[in-house]
């Protein structure tokens, strides 16, 4: 067997020396670039990866914070109450994401039919309203549609019974508010992909016996699909993690995953941060699962993107 350590290095050729010089320069440049990235890397480690690792680690400890165990996960999966929270969160997220995507696909398309000037205005409104969420949004809904809300009172005084069966502080109310803050975001995300649909594809389709409907079924929607799927992932995650809006509207009356986590890590009564961490991990896992599923589906349908 040849001993690697005793082998002498091959003397470098003259051309190799120049090559090495160039390589060294490139390496030096790369180092500078990396140095410039350092603040960003530190930020990511400190505020993204760090907490994530801490959460993951905490989730495997018992309530005393000393013993390593999977008890927290077992607690969640054995408790009907917590399972219901997960289910409620999944249902409301799926429902609001699907509804918002459908509305946004149609709305963004109708945007493209206006003149550029009006399109810009509409986008500005969408941009503004997409930032309107959390407690201010819930409060607005309470003022307008709550039990003593402006519209509720106005319509009942007018003798119109529209809101008689409507309760803002219920599942329907929550869904309504979720959809409200998801739609503008969905529009903002889907709108640019309409620019990628070429007019000549429509013309070619119409010359090949296609109708407007067949164009959208066979070409338009499949081309938009990656952006629709991506938007869906973001909306789903957005709804899964939404806390302030739900908290302001229903408090602890409604059993949602994000509300449960909050009560476990910052409640006045009993703090169980390890259990909260385990639920946080499950929340993160569902989001990653949703994205993975999305990706798989898209690859199946849009084979050209592989």
């Amino acid at each position, binding site marked *: 067997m040849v001993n690697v350590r005793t082998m002498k290095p091959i003397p470098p050729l003259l051309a190799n020396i120049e090559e090495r010089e160039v390589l060294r320069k490139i390496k030096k440049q790369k180092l500078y670039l990396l140095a410039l990235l350092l603040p960003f890397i530190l930020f990511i480690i400190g505020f993204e990866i760090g907490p994530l690792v801490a959460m993951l680690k905490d989730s495997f400890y018992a309530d005393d914070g000393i013993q390593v165990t999977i008890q927290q996960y077992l607690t969640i999966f054995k408790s009907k109450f917590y399972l219901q929270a997960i289910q409620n969160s999944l249902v409301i997220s799926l429902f609001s994401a699907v509804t918002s995507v459908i509305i946004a696909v149609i709305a963004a398309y109708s945007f493209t039919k206006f003149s550029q000037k009006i399109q810009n205005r509409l986008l500005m409104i969408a941009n503004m309203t997409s930032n309107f969420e959390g407690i201010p949004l819930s409060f607005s809904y309470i003022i307008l549609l709550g039990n003593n809300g402006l519209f509720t009172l106005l319509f009942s005084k007018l003798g119109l019974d529209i809101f008689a069966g409507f309760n803002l502080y219920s599942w329907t109310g929550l869904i309504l508010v979720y959809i409200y803050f998801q739609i503008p975001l969905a529009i903002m995300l889907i709108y640019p992909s309409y620019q990628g649909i*070429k007019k*000549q*594809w429509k*013309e*070619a*389709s*119409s*010359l*090949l*016996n*296609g*109708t407007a409907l*067949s164009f959208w079924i*066979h*070409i338009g929607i*499949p*081309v938009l699909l990656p952006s629709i799927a991506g938007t869906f992932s973001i909306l789903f995650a957005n709804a899964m993690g939404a806390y302030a809006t739900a908290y302001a509207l229903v408090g602890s009356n409604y059993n949602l995953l994000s509300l449960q986590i909050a009560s476990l890590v910052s409640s006045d009564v009993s703090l169980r941060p390890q259990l909260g961490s385990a639920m946080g991990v499950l929340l993160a896992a569902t989001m990653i699962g949703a994205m993975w599923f999305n990706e798989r589906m898209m690859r199946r349908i*849009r*084979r*050209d993107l592989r």
Partner: protein
Amino acid sequence: MSYVTIDQVTKGYNHQVVLENISLTLKKGEFATLLGQSGCGKSTLLRSIAGLEDVNEGSIFIDGKDITHLSPRNREVGMVFQSYALFPNMTVFENIAYGLKMKKAKDIKSRVTRMIELVDLIGKEQSYPHQLSGGQQQRVALSRALVMEPKVLLLDEPLSALDAKIRKNLQKELKRIQKELDITTIFVTHDQEEAMTMSDRIFVMNKGKIVQSGSPTEIYTSPVNTFVAKFIGNYNVLSIDVFRKLVQSTEIDGNEVAIRPEVLQLVAAGENHLDLQANWDIKGTIKDVSMTGNVLRYEVETEESAFLVDDLHHQGKMLEQGAQVHILVPKKECIMLAN
């Protein structure tokens, strides 16, 4: 009997006339070219035939049927776009099969396969458009239109995005396929050389009108006005007064004289065997010589005007810049233009 008839078609956008009283007829199986500079209305005319643009006045007939107000899908025309317009989410096979599928046609597979053989794309059936070269994409676009067996094939500058060599090959192939299927074809281009090599008939367009139509030879050798003369072949166009002075003759009529650069002959000053019976003799000085490969192009300055003279590039026969020369102008090659 004419197969395609365009009868006094007029179209305008916001008070601007794009097509003005266009009339033309084509025979079945003819390869016709609409030739003109960009903005002359040639693409608009093609898109009007396809039904992608409405016309304000006039009618369009194909095979005796008035199609002026039919939707594109009912016109039985096929079109190839400059940008190919292939569907990016479909394979070559699916792209070609799309029209047949929409039509709910039978034996889609065999018809598509035959097309793929015709345009020489065997083995590429399962590729996506972005995996193909420009030339291959253009073949897919062509077969996608042809598989529908349209009555008329419309080609909107289909080769202008390709590089010179592929373009030459595709020109030949397009012509072969067109002959093989005997399909009436209307081709739009701004490249006069392409128009010349491919067409049975050329319609030269300018500012929304057809200014001249005829076979490539007719168009090239007998332009009817200054625009055609200058656009089609680098003609030397001189006003009649200037030309009369140069040749010292009053026996010529018309408004302007057009002379092709390749019919002119340069003879170095001092040589005496000039045929002054058949030619006019104009004295001049060579101002510039340029070489385009097989052709030497001289710019010769005379007392009144400058001439372009083309000569085939023979070894050692190049005249020097600054040389005094006679330009021999064959009398029968001078074309008198009325306008």
